């Protein structure tokens, strides 16, 4: 047993030595695996780092590419837009130099003391275009039941220095507010009688006019002009006979505007039309003078967020006429100095986009018969089917303080007006 025990120890020792000789690294196995794992982790970290760098690089490339794509898309769309515009330009080239044209039809049916009437009031052809870099031109040719007339044809400068604009030809002179509106542009069917009698209807004038816009932070504009006469229906003075310069009519106007709040504004104007020496038609020997003054005041409530649907306008004009004019009486002709006053006031409320209603009061003296006057009271209702199609119902009550008034200017009257527009349609500043 002892031998065998010794033998066993010897064999064990031999096996250990042999094993160590045959597998020399087993003794360091634990350390080698850790190193290997460390190396593997380091390798993996390196690979991960490279992968992340690659991903980052790819993302950069991708964003750069998408940026380029965006740029290309923007450039392409811009180019497409330019091409589309070029195509449109080419397509419209044959008509590009034609002036803008529009036609306004104003017709009504009426019942007055004189009876009923389908009244074709006017078909007004408007034409406008630039003349050159220095001027533009416009014209309104008006056909009525009594004929065709050039209502306006005027050239206006566009490039004068010092805030000046000059206008020449036949135009509606810058006197007052409503006197220079074409009748179909008014908020009522008929021009107030005070304008018809004191100004002579629309302020049509053959002459020149210059406007100056003051360089102020608020709107302030002055007009001066010289013309043969003012008033389309003013038959007291000839429009065609040459005359001394003192017999011309000279106009001046000052117009300002203030925004009281974002939604409310006030506009004020004052006008003077003076004729230093008047030669009245039919009175070759008699002379005189005339000075017509006007003050106009307009208040507007236009809520910015709903100006298309709501609003209120209150407008008034007051005129004084001072003149010494020859008159024809049963006892012969004589000159008389006189002063007359007249004017109107109206209020109009916008009920919604399509409907508005208002009321007008007018006081109109008869210039040739001092003391004679007509008062009128006019409710009116307007239905806008669209911006270019309008129906208006108006009741007109006229009260004279004298006998023998024209039936068309007496008593109860009812009008139903239909106004339509085709073609180019621009909103003028003066008739806004």
């Amino acid at each position, binding site marked *: 047993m002892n031998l065998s025990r010794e033998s066993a120890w010897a064999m064990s020792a031999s096996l250990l030595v042999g094993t160590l000789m045959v597998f020399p690294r087993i003794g360091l196995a634990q350390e080698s695996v850790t190193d290997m794992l460390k190396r593997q982790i380091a390798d993996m970290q390196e690979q991960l780092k490279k992968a992340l760098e690659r991903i980052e690089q790819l993302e950069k490339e991708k964003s750069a590419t998408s940026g380029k794509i965006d740029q290309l898309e923007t450039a392409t769309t*811009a180019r497409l837009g330019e091409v589309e515009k070029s195509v449109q330009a080419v397509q419209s080239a044959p008509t590009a130099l034609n002036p803008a044209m529009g036609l306004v039809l104003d017709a009504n049916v009426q019942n007055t003391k004189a009876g009923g009437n389908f009244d074709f009031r006017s078909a007004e052809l408007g034409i406008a275009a630039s003349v050159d870099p220095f001027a533009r031109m416009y014209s309104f040719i008006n056909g009525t039941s009594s004929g065709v007339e050039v209502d306006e044809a005027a050239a206006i400068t566009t490039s004068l220095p010092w*805030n*000046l604009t000059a206008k020449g030809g036949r135009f509606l002179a810058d006197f007052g507010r409503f006197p220079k509106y074409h009748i179909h542009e008014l908020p009522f069917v008929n021009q107030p009688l005070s304008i018809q009698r004191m100004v002579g209807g629309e302020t049509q004038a053959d002459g020149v006019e210059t406007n100056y816009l003051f360089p102020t932070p608020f709107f302030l504009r002055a007009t001066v002009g010289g013309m043969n006469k003012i008033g389309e229906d003013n038959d007291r003075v000839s429009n065609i006979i040459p005359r001394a310069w003192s017999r011309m009519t000279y106009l001046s106007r000052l117009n300002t505007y203030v925004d009281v709040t974002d939604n409310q504004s006030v506009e004020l104007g004052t006008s003077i039309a003076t004729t230093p020496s008047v030669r009245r038609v039919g009175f070759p020997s008699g002379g005189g003078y005339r000075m017509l003054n006007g003050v106009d005041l307009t208040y507007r409530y236009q809520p910015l967020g*709903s100006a298309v649907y709501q609003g209120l306008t209150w407008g008034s004009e007051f005129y004084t006429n001072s003149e010494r004019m020859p008159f024809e009486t049963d006892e012969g002709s004589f000159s008389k100095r006189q002063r007359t006053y007249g004017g109107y006031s109206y209020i109009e409320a916008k009920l919604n986009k399509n409907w508005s209603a208002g009321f007008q009061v007018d006081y109109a003296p008869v210039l040739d018969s001092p003391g004679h006057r007509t008062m009128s009271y006019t409710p009116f209702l307007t239905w806008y089917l669209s911006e270019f199609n309008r129906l208006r119902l108006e009741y007109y009550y006229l009260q004279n303080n004298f006998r023998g008034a024209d039936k068309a200017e007496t008593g109860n009257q009812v009008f139903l007006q239909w106004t339509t527009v085709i073609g180019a349609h*621009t*909103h003028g*500043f003066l008739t806004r």
Partner: protein
Amino acid sequence: MKMKIFKSKNWKVFFVSLAFIWLQAGSVFAQQIRVVATWPALADITRQIGKELVNVDSLATGVEDPHGVPMKPSFVPRLNRADVLVLIGLEDEHSWLPALLDVANNPKILLGRPGYIDCSVGIPVLEAPTLVDRSEGDLHPKGNPHYLLDPVRAKIVAQNIAAGLSRNFPQHQAVFEKNLKAYLTELDTWIARWEKMAAPLKGVKFVEYHPEWIYLADRFGMKRIGSVELKPGIEPTPNHIVQLVQDIKQDKAQLLIYGAQNPRVPQQIASETGIKVIRLYSGGGNQPETDSYIKWIDYTVRTLVQAVS
């Protein structure tokens, strides 16, 4: 009578003197480029490009009906003093701007002159009518002008403004180009954000009062199924409303968008169909949340997303 005429000159002299005083006062601020923009969003983009070199003024406030801006005479002095005019174009401002330019006595900013910066140049226009006839309503012959609602097209607007400013003031071109680049980068970031944010809008069917929202809808995948207006600019007839109500029910439209229009008809349609009605302005700038172009589009997209969520 002559005496009175001479007397009336006294106040004219007073006003002329006053005008010269204002003229002198104005020269103090002559260092900055005076820009008048028609809408607040254009004014903001111009400020981003011109920075301290420009003094920008917007005519409209942003709450107005796009085609019903009141023609205020108080706009005239601002246009008169402007070095450049920045506008939407495509006849967006046709009902009020040309008449104001006629009396502003400022040749620099007239159509065709260098100071007339039309931001629609190069814009891919949608809804250009094939039939230009008023039987189709109050049309814009050159196409829908409400392109500012698309932020990608706004990049072209910014480029147009930078080009316009550089054309008029070449001495500052480098500054304008640098500011433009920075603004375009900022816009790109926002566009990416809006595209993610607007994911719920994709495929959403909507009705609009006036054809104002097609550019935004096109950008974010919304589908318009009709308009409250019978035709552009024409108020609806009872028959049209009946038909629209049927369409909304049939197509399951989720939103009715209106802006400066009267809320009466949208509310009536909502009561009959249950459609969600939201008021969003196509002008921007009318409240603190929309006082810059980016804030305005952000507010608009967020409001739409909240409405469909």
